[in-house]
């Protein structure tokens, strides 16, 4: 290896994009919006109002009334419409003002920004496109078989505001093999990415680190098989098979987000556990809660990194790293006009990470940590014994 001096490398922070991604964005569990009240959702540097009409269909409009700017999220649902708290203009789910009770007629131009809605897996989605295209139903995330039936626990759904980071930090995780060891305390034993069309997938097998106790991705007694696919820019389904001492549980983890500004986003995650046969309801719920807790911890581990790191447009990679440049190239398709999507952004790309060297090193490091701990433990024991003797 040459030891020639090279120049110090500069970090290119880059400039954030001037727009928000095109695609389906999940707002949360659909039923939580069906309480007859208007709901406020922050997204794309806007405030949106979401409500259910008399048939239960969910609608999403820009949150500010086009009359005098009243806040529709503080209005009232009247029939199928959302009524503004300021002068009672009634807005329909199609974005048109349907009625102004005190007026002879409604101005024809009374139309506001609306977002097309769809439901999948009990969750509400809206279509966002700065170009204003019609919603593309073909690329809605897939239905997950049986997930809303008694075969699974109901979604356990959680929301977390992330400040100071662009949501691309979250996407980068898809290709980041090594952070699973350092941040999530798991050994990735195999790691593979496939990007194709509007999907990006990570395939990972991992086992927990015995020197860390239970963290986000399980302890030493558990191995994990994980398939995690982004359907579009903001919604990931993660199919997990957790083998805990030979006892296998299937878990579905949803990881989705809503950008709120170019340096903040709302992270949402939901968990459903396939009910193991022959277990009573109480035990099943307990298992589901434990997984929710541990994956929740997993996200917090990432958040601690994001909150303190710098944005990097020019990551410096080693051979063991995943294909972060190719992942970002894939992600960029959602930030350009549809006519500007380049073939390489959507062309199939496969990448198998070589985890051999990493695992050799990590095994040794963990062994050393355990040895040191045992030694400290016995010294502490001896000291305790000495103190007790004195």
């Amino acid at each position, binding site marked *: 290896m040459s030891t020639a001096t090279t120049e110090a490398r*500069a970090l*290119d*922070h*880059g*400039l*954030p*994009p*001037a*727009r928000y991604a095109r695609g389906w964005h999940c707002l949360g569990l659909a039923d939580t919006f069906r309480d007859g009240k208007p709901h406020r959702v922050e997204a794309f540097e806007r405030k949106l109002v979401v409500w259910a009409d008399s048939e239960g269909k969910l609608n999403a409009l820009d949150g500010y009334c086009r009359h005098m700017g009243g806040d529709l999220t503080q209005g009232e649902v009247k029939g199928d419409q959302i009524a503004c708290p300021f002068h009672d203009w009634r807005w329909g789910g199609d974005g048109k003002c349907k009625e102004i009770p005190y007026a002879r007629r409604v101005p024809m131009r009374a139309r506001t920004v609306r977002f097309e809605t769809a439901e999948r897996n009990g969750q509400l989605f809206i279509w966002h496109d700065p170009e204003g295209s019609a919603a593309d139903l073909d690329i809605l995330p897939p239905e997950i078989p049986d997930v809303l039936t008694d075969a699974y626990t109901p979604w356990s759904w959680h929301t977390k505001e992330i400040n100071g980071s662009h949501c*691309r930090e979250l996407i980068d995780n898809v290709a980041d093999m090594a952070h699973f060891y350092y941040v999530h305390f798991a050994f990735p034993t195999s790691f*593979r990415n*496939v990007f*194709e069309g509007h*999907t990006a*997938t990570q*395939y990972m097998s991992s086992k927990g680190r015995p020197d860390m106790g239970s963290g986000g991705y399980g302890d030493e007694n558990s191995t994990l098989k994980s*398939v995690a*696919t982004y359907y579009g820019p903001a919604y990931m389904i993660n199919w997990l098979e957790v083998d805990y001492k030979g006892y296998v549980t299937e878990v579905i983890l949803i990881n989705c987000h809503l950008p709120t500004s170019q340096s903040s986003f709302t992270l949402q995650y939901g968990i459903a556990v396939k009910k193991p046969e022959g277990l009573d309801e109480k035990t099943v719920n307990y298992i589901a809660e434990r997984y929710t807790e541990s994956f929740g911890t997993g996200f917090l581990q990432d958040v601690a990194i994001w909150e303190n790191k710098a944005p990097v*447009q*020019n990551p*410096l*990679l*080693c*051979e063991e*790293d995943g*294909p972060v*440049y*190719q992942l*970002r*190239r894939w992600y*960029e398709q959602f*930030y*350009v006009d549809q006519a500007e999507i380049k*073939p*390489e952004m959507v*062309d*199939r*790309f*496969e*990448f*198998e*990470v*070589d*985890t*051999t060297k990493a695992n050799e090193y990590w095994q040794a490091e963990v062994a050393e940590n355990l040895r040191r701990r045992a030694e400290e433990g016995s010294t502490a024991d001896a000291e305790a014994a000495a103190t007790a003797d004195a």
Partner: protein
Amino acid sequence: MGAFTPTRQETIEDQKLYLDGRLREIACLDCLAKVKVKKNSEHHTAVQWSDEALGHCTEFARLSGQPGGRPVYESCPRLMASIDRAVTEGELEVGAEDGY
């Protein structure tokens, strides 16, 4: 001109290096598909498909005919064998250069 705009010329060079550096064209021995491949080690493989190559792959076409369609995670076993063969024949060099 990307959505996430680099502010340094060197970043454009880095993007070229990591995205296109050392990619070799490999032809499938069983169909007309030609893909670009890089192998940093025996276990590592990067495969860049094009729309055209995907259209040629007979194995993918067969999988697409299945109910539920082609599972996206599946590699084409014939192409993978062709890549291994290219390595044995010395057409595809295995090894990384300074991390790319």
